[in-house]
């Protein structure tokens, strides 16, 4: 049994962050797959680990850690292995800035569109009472409200439009950022790359109008560089492929 246990869903967005950070550091961990669409995160076994009922969560020794970006910072601080934060204070500031920008501004927009187009519809076949019962088991009021919107398709056109606007804007900013430096926020692969890659690798699949080799050459260069990393391949092998397969198919042509 490893010293670290990670509760995660697919290698994507928040779950993918600590998975990839641990892989980059070379830290072995016991993997507990929490199937978000089966609502594993609201079952008593998991609530005993994280009463908030959100994923991911990590156990190290007798400590439970939550919040994906903060877990990554902990992983980088607590374990030997390659540094996933640059040494220069201004670069470190920039890494944090981009992670917050993703976690609080751009990420929620990706998430809203994803929940509207994928998560919600994948549960639409369940009878109404069953969906209501699922919602009733969710501990956090914010998450209850989010699930209700997704399961009953209650997103307004204006909030979806605002999310799409932010995605287009954010992709443009990322393209510009990657024109300034080799990686996001510094010239060194860091937590910012792990964070942002996990939320953007699907762009060429889902938003080919915004991101591709011609329109966003800098993002494309960066996606290829990150995609080639052994830790990424190792992490993706832990998923069901439900997100990564389509991206693999695209990248296969470009990364030989």
């Amino acid at each position: 049994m490893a010293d670290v246990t990670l509760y995660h869903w697919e290698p994507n967005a928040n779950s993918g962050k600590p998975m990839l950070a641990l892989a980059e550091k070379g830290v072995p961990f016991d993997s507990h797959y929490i199937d978000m669409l089966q609502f594993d995160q609201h079952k008593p076994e998991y609530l005993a680990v994280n009463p908030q009922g959100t994923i991911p969560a990590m156990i190290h020794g007798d400590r439970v850690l939550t919040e994906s970006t903060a877990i990554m910072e902990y992983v980088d601080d607590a374990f030997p292995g390659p540094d996933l934060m640059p040494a220069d204070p201004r670069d470190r500031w920039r890494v944090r800035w981009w992670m917050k920008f993703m976690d609080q501004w751009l990420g929620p927009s990706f998430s809203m569109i994803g929940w509207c187009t994928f998560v919600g519809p994948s549960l639409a076949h369940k009878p109404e009472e069953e969906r209501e019962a699922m919602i009733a088991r969710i501990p956090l009021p914010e998450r209850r409200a989010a699930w209700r919107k997704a399961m009953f398709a209650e997103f307004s056109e204006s909030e979806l439009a605002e999310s799409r606007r932010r995605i287009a804007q954010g992709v443009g900013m990322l393209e510009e950022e990657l024109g300034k430096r080799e990686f996001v926020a510094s010239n060194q692969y860091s937590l910012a790359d792990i964070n942002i890659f996990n939320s953007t690798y699907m762009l060429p699949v889902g938003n080919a109008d915004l991101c591709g080799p011609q329109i966003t050459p800098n993002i494309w260069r960066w996606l290829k560089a990150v995609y080639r990393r052994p830790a990424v391949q190792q992490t993706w092998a832990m998923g069901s492929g439900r997100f990564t397969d389509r991206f693999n198919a695209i990248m296969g042509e470009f990364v030989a």
Partner: protein
Amino acid sequence: MTMLYHGEPNGPSLSVLAALYESGLAIETQPIDLLAGERHALPDVTDSAALDYAVEGEGPVLVVDGEAMSEAVFLAQYFDEATGGCGLQPSDPYARWQMLMWCRQATERLSPAVAYLGNLAWSQKRLAAMSPAEFDKLANTIVSEDQRKRWQDLRDDVVDAAKVEDSKTKVAQFAARVEAQLADGRAWLMGPFSIADLETFAWLRSMRELEADAFAGQARCLAWMARVEARPSVQKALARATADTPARAFAPGPEINRWG
């Protein structure tokens, strides 16, 4: 060239000034009028992404070699790390995680709530009093569309009653959370003094007047606020005020979580 542009010592401008003084770094500071939009017209900025798209809204801006740097907690970490460690953050990884988690709760839950209430109470009238030409000129300098919309909503006195209620609840919850954290008799939130104290104090300070009920019976919280306020760094930051009541100085801040 390095320059810290800051508003009245309240919220993020207060925590960043105090963190700077804790660090002892010799960085020049320059007060600006945030509600006049001066933050969006700073000289010598060649890379403005972090200024234009700061999640925290109208916070202080540190300009280093033309690059605008924002976000109060990260600026405090920057000062700490630029000195090689001046005691603003714990070095133990777990203690650091705890501090970061605390600060995230403060910036995600407390600061949007305080900014919402504070702006409506004390900044709405000044924006509403601007002539259309004056306001348009200001709004045109704001690059981020959603940030500009928060300015416009404030000027137009667009009030969401549910957000007001939710914000009041969040302020009260945070005061109670501080009280609980101090229950074991510790002097500072994380045990040793840290950025968490400055960030939390800087946002709660203005609420003693506006949301007095939130502090009723929270004796440890109030004593802790007095302790933070008495620190020389905080006193020095408060002395940068140009207004009589800096705790009433607000400009559109972080947005209230829109999803998730």
